């Protein structure tokens, strides 16, 4: 109970500076731009390395099939 009360008090205490964050506190287009660019920058490396991994997997499978048909 004591710990919960202290946590709530702490959150109330930091809430005011937290709204200085450009994403949380900024309105409208600014906030949306930050969210969009965060999603874009996070997705880009995942997409690229996923594509590379898929290509390598395909090449390995192709090579295995060729090896299995060789005499």
């Amino acid at each position, binding site marked *: 109970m004591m710990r919960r009360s202290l946590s709530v008090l702490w959150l109330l205490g930091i809430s005011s500076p937290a709204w200085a964050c450009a994403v949380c506190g900024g309105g409208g287009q600014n906030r949306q731009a*930050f969210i969009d*660019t965060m999603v874009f920058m996070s997705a880009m490396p995942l997409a*690229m*390395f996923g594509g590379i991994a898929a290509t390598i997997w395909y090449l390995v499978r192709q090579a295995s099939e060729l090896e299995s048909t060789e005499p």
Partner: protein
Amino acid sequence: MAEAKVPTTSMDPGFRHRRRKALLPDAVIGMIFFIVTEVMLFSGFISGFSIIKANAPGNVWPPPGQPRLPIESTAVNTLILLLSGAAIFYAGRRFKEDAPSAARPFLLAVVLGSMFVILQGSEWVALLRDGLTMTSSSYGSFFYMIVGSHAVHAVCAILTLLYLFARLQRGTLSSEAFIAGRMFWYFVVFLWPFLYWKVYLG
């Protein structure tokens, strides 16, 4: 009668060492990693540009008092660059069948790419004269940073293609080197329409 043992290790008689062909040539792997890092570089540029645009005073973009970008002439320039990409693709097809026959489309790709860079340069001269500079506004600084970085990559790719063309003429161009060079050019070509959309049309 005991069955003959199939040789599976180098200790077994009759074992044959077989050299496996590499799945991806080293040049191609290196170029893939280079392109991945450059894509992240441009992603960062575009992200910063998007945030600056969203924070424009009064949501007015481009900012007032700055010259407008030449959208129509750059659209023509974009087509020239895409044609260059098509030429290098055709050169790749010809190279597989008969290497010397790839010379003409290869040279066409280099010429078209050089035209793109020269025309972009002439547009820059006009924009600088009209007052859009690196320090005139955030619009100007982002424009020259993004488009300038692409131009640097285009120039380096053209120099790479010229080197590969020289090797093709001498008959010493390997398919791995040609693939890697073509990948670099495809990166430059296909990145540009995205930059045109975000910077010129955005």
